[in-house]
């Protein structure tokens, strides 16, 4: 039986220098500033020693509905030494893209890798799993992908879903989702599942999770979506190198305009940074500074968020959840309030109505007064006439009497 060497032993045998191993460990520290238990309050040498003493973790990597982009991100490190290091630190016992075997040989390799490390290996899943019509849309060695995943995952110690497809379905699950693609955590229960969404995710996130698991014996702290907090706790916006432009209100309005050339904020071009939890802004891809969408002038797509990529329009702007003050200041005295056109119109209408009603009533009142005066006058005239008539009558009587 093959004896597992420790990481340090293996590196020494492979001719990897201690210097580059320390470099890798310091990279791990730098990329996990938000609390990887492995790197907390420790010097890089302590971490190097701790990792070096650990047995190389056995990793089995399964591909489902994917583009192999996540594998590529692991391999396409700028310095070949780093990819080599990652592959030396972990013992990648089965990986369809990287192995030479095919056909029956490959099937046998999977079987033996699972059997050898049963209950101890870390299963990395890349790609979504089709569920519709009993998973007929993808088969491996004559078995539906669904069945392969269930069989292998049952014997693993922990499952890492690498990439957005394995985490929650990703591209294959975009509407109308003809294959019924879902992520690992919709199928597997009873095993620790760590989601590393991203299209692709940074390979250091994988390395951090695997090393944390084998050295500390536990899964790093996860958020409510199963993403490790050390890499996914903060939104890109918080540490964005273009943040100062956002605060100053300097936005690129269209692609290629003056602001875009000057490297201003991409928010108005549809950048999803304010709602996307990922460490991209602090953790460059391929160890090349600024090698990520926002760094090259393309708005963030929100690839780590289930509700954003392939669910929102690329150029749609997103709400700012935690608005912060701009770098402008209000003056000492500012005018308070102001009237809108609608409010002014309403006040005018009410005032006009009141004025009109008052005028109409005053007219009516005046005419009623006039009527009253006229009536009074008429009464007086009647009375006069009456009294005159009476007098005449009296006179008549008088004459008669005379």
């Amino acid at each position: 039986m093959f004896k597992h060497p420790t990481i340090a032993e293996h590196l020494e045998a492979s001719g990897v220098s201690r210097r580059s191993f320390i470099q890798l460990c310091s990279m791990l520290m730098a990329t996990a500033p938000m609390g990887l238990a492995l790197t907390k309050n420790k010097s890089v040498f302590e971490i190097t020693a701790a990792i070096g003493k650990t047995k190389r973790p056995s990793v089995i990597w399964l591909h489902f509905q994917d583009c192999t982009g996540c594998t590529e991100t692991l391999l396409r490190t700028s310095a070949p030494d780093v990819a080599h290091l990652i592959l030396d630190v972990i013992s990648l016992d089965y990986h369809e893209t990287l192995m030479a075997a095919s056909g029956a040989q490959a099937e046998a390799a999977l079987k033996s890798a699972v059997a050898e490390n049963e209950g101890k290996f870390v299963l990395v899943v890349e790609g979504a799993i089709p569920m519709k019509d009993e998973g007929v849309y993808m088969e491996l060695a004559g078995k539906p992908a669904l069945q392969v995943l269930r069989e292998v995952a049952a014997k693993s110690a922990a499952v890492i879903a690498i990439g957005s497809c394995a985490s929650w379905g990703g591209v294959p699950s975009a509407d109308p989702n003809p294959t019924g693609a879902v992520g690992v955590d919709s199928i597997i229960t009873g095993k620790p599942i760590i989601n590393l969404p991203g299209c692709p995710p940074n390979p250091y996130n994988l390395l951090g999770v695997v090393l944390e698991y084998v050295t500390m014996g536990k899964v790093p702290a996860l958020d409510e979506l199963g993403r490790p907090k050390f890499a996914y706790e903060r939104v890109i916006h918080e540490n964005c190198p273009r943040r100062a432009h956002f605060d100053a209100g300097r936005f690129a309005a269209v692609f290629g305009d003056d602001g875009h050339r000057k490297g201003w904020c991409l928010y108005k071009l549809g950048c999803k940074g304010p709602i996307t939890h990922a460490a991209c802004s602090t953790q460059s891809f391929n160890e090349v500074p600024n090698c990520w969408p926002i760094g090259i002038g393309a708005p963030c797509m929100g690839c780590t968020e289930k509700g954003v990529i392939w669910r929102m329009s690329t150029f749609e702007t997103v709400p700012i959840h935690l608005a912060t003050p701009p770098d402008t200041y209000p003056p000492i005295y500012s005018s308070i309030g102001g009237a809108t056109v609608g409010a002014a119109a309403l006040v005018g209408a009410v005032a006009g109505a009141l004025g009109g009603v008052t005028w109409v009533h005053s007219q009516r009142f005046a005419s009623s007064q006039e009527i009253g005066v006229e009536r009074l006058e008429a009464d007086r005239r009647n009375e006069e006439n009456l009294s005159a008539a009476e007098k005449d009558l009296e006179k008549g009587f008088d004459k008669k009497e005379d």
Partner: protein
Amino acid sequence: MAITRRELITNIAKAGVPAAVAMTVSTETLQAENLPVPNAPVGLMYDASLCIGCKACEVACNEANNTPPDTRGDGLHQSAADLNDLTRNIIKLYKSDDGSVTSFVKRQCMQCFDPACAAGCPFQALHKDHETGVVLWDGDKCIGCRYCTITCPYSVPRFQWKGFDPVVTKCELCSHRLAKGLKPGCSSVCPTGAVIFGSREMLLLEAKRRIKKNPGRYYQDRVYGETDNGGTQALYLSRVAFADLGLPELGPESVPARTLRWQKRIYQYFALPALLYVGLVQVIRKNLKGHEQEAHERAEETGLRAQL
């Protein structure tokens, strides 16, 4: 010419008016009511010369008071133009006309010893805490008259103009945090110590220490709020004139005390109201006489009983 009894009384009354006015106005300044002094007044001391305008206090204030950021300006930033229903604390910028002198200023409730808002409040919804001296707002007593927003010489209390159950918003010195032994939100995050929290006594000592240590650094070598407006629990130090920072020179007498002084003169010995009453009675009697005469004439003329 013989003087009738009526004329005599009228003349005496006329002579009495200036006498009464002279009597009331010449009285010594009335003492303001003996206000209860808080047992252990606490406050904030803001040194404008140390402020870097980072606005961490604005964010911390909203977090501490569980208030959403005011993004009504541009929809993107917490960019309130002034204190408002979502802003208890704000950093403003003073710039002289030629732009050569600038200063930040943090505005929040001054926690006056004699708060004009509380004096203006008809139901004591705004009241001073006996222990800490913090001016608190009690929503159960508030009737929404908004007198407080008008009476405050610093324009601090702000009314929520929209909403079914509006509130009056003002800094209450994070009293809920003080109760837990925490500092107010703003002072707990200030990176330069421009705003510090403590007992008013200690803050005043610290302010005077800074003035003594840096003679000529501060405007008039004076602490705003030591005596201004009857003394406030929020104290200010500044390089530029306080009036430029929106802190009016109100003198040592508090706004409510000044109002009360005049109010008391008007009602002193009840002289002016009594005179006013006499005058009104005269006017009414005169008018009534005219009306009676007219009614009588009308009745005679028309033969109908006239109604007043």
